[in-house]
């Protein structure tokens, strides 16, 4: 199975054309194997009682952060559907929807970065050496985000930056309401841009499969609820987080 595809350019020189989409099936199979292995491992673990969702509540995600998350999720979903479905044979006029969703994602990511910089949230998500130690030590409870959540965020961030950066360069190569394409990029460079866009898309497919799986796991569902409603209970806080490292505001 190839990673990339090549073509002859207009001068007869072999240049990169883009990613090999055969990898899509490999990524999907690998993601589902990883999910199955994790599910089996978790099923074999003995767990105590699930913390109660009743009682007093604390705030985990503000309304703006939740809105960012879901708009981002919706735009990535649309981008993946419009980008990948035609490749697997479900044909429709996808390009316009794709770049509109791409603009939404770019704007929302830029806004999210700016808000994180000014709200101080960036620190609570950054991955450091302490997170490795924490991940290996089963007794340490995390602050607001676990090492696994931080790692997932970091990987999605890198892949999203790659897909947006390459997407903007590809956007310049098509006609839009604001400009006409120029066909000015060298074919080899264009192939590299397509390759980066494709490989980061494949990465996102795999990571998002895992992200959705973890969001739906029974013991993690309260995090998903908090991304919808904004709160977790004090019981859930005590069972999963170190109150010394994260002291959220109470909420109703």
């Amino acid at each position: 199975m190839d990673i990339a595809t090549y073509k002859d350019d207009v001068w007869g020189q072999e240049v990169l054309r883009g990613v090999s989409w055969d990898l899509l099936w490999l990524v999907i199979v690998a993601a589902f194997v990883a999910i199955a292995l994790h599910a089996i491992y978790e099923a074999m673990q003995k767990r105590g009682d699930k913390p109660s969702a009743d009682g007093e509540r604390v705030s985990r995600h503000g309304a703006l952060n939740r809105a960012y998350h879901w708009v981002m999720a919706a735009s990535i979903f649309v981008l993946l559907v419009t980008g990948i479905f035609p490749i697997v044979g479900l044909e429709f006029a996808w390009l316009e929807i794709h770049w509109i969703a791409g603009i939404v994602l770019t704007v929302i990511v830029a806004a999210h970065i700016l808000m994180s910089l000014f709200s101080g949230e960036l620190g609570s998500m950054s991955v450091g050496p302490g997170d490795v130690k924490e991940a290996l030590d089963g007794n340490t409870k995390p602050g607001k985000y676990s090492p696994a959540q931080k790692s997932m965020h970091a990987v999605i961030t890198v892949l999203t930056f790659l897909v947006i950066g390459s997407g903007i360069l590809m956007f310049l190569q098509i006609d839009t309401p604001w400009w006409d394409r120029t066909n000015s990029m060298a074919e080899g460079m264009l192939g590299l841009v397509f390759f980066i866009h494709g490989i980061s898309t494949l990465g996102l497919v795999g990571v998002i499969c895992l992200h959705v799986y973890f969001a739906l796991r029974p013991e993690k569902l309260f995090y998903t609820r908090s991304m919808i409603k904004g709160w977790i209970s004090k019981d859930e806080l005590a069972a999963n987080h170190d109150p010394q490292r994260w002291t959220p505001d109470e909420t109703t």
Partner: protein
Amino acid sequence: MASFDVMPDVQLYQPVELDDALNLADELGDEGWLLGGGQDTYGWLKDRAKQPRAMIDLNGIEALHGISETNDGIEIGAATTLREIIRDERVNRDYSLLVEAAGRVASPQIRNVGTLGGNLSQDTRCWYYRRGLDCYRAGGNICYANGPESMNREHAVIGASRCVAVSPSDTATALVALEATMVARSVKGERTIAAEDFFVGPDTHITQMTSLKAGEILTAVRIPAKWAGKKFYFEKVADRDVWDFALVSIAVAMSMDGDTIGDSRFVCGGVACTPHRLTNVERAVRGKSLSEESAEAVAPMASEGTKPLNYNHFKLPLMENLVRRAMRG
């Protein structure tokens, strides 16, 4: 690119039963090549720009030949030659639009062997693509015909999406105007496709001209009685009078109530990757009569929404003038 002027080694199947052809098409999938009159095929193969594993010659299948009446119009077998269509009495009487369009295809020699199915399914004439360059239409990531120095005199002025190639079929415009239905068969069964949906643009499928899937064979074209004997107009503008593709063409079907136009279908060829319906013109002509005054009123609408490339601005007044001439009556 070398042109070998001889056929490459390729397996040739010559089934005489449609079921055998369908099984072969199913078995070969993308590696099979359906052969009608061969007028588009042989160039591709001799240039080595397309290299199918096998060809399925459909000409020996009796069921794909001939013109027959149906409960609602006529049915033309996909392997019926253009000459047979041109000479058919019923088609001449009721659907002279198709006769005129078929009569302007290429040359008498080509019309003698060229089939209706082949004319409808033929690939685009964009020379960058036909030269074998790895463009969008060939599965690549660039259009060589739409750049600052590209030669794009014959290319699209509307409906382009990355690829700017145009549909070369003369009969396609007539059949869209006549609201024909394409019949496609595969081992899974039969499906019918409105002519308008049969041709696909690059926004939907950039590597195909039609909605035919691998393993499917276009078996027939059905033309409804709705437009039989109506007022028709066809004109094709090309660099040469024979053996040339349309720069712009127009096929018009109009239902007249006395001097007044009712329903109408105005379809332009050579301007988009699919036959391009002028729906704004169709709306505007309703209730009007065929006259110089009406012609002047609606002609400018023909080029609305167009976006010409470097070398094909001339197609815009051509579109307008063809509508003008159709409306003069």
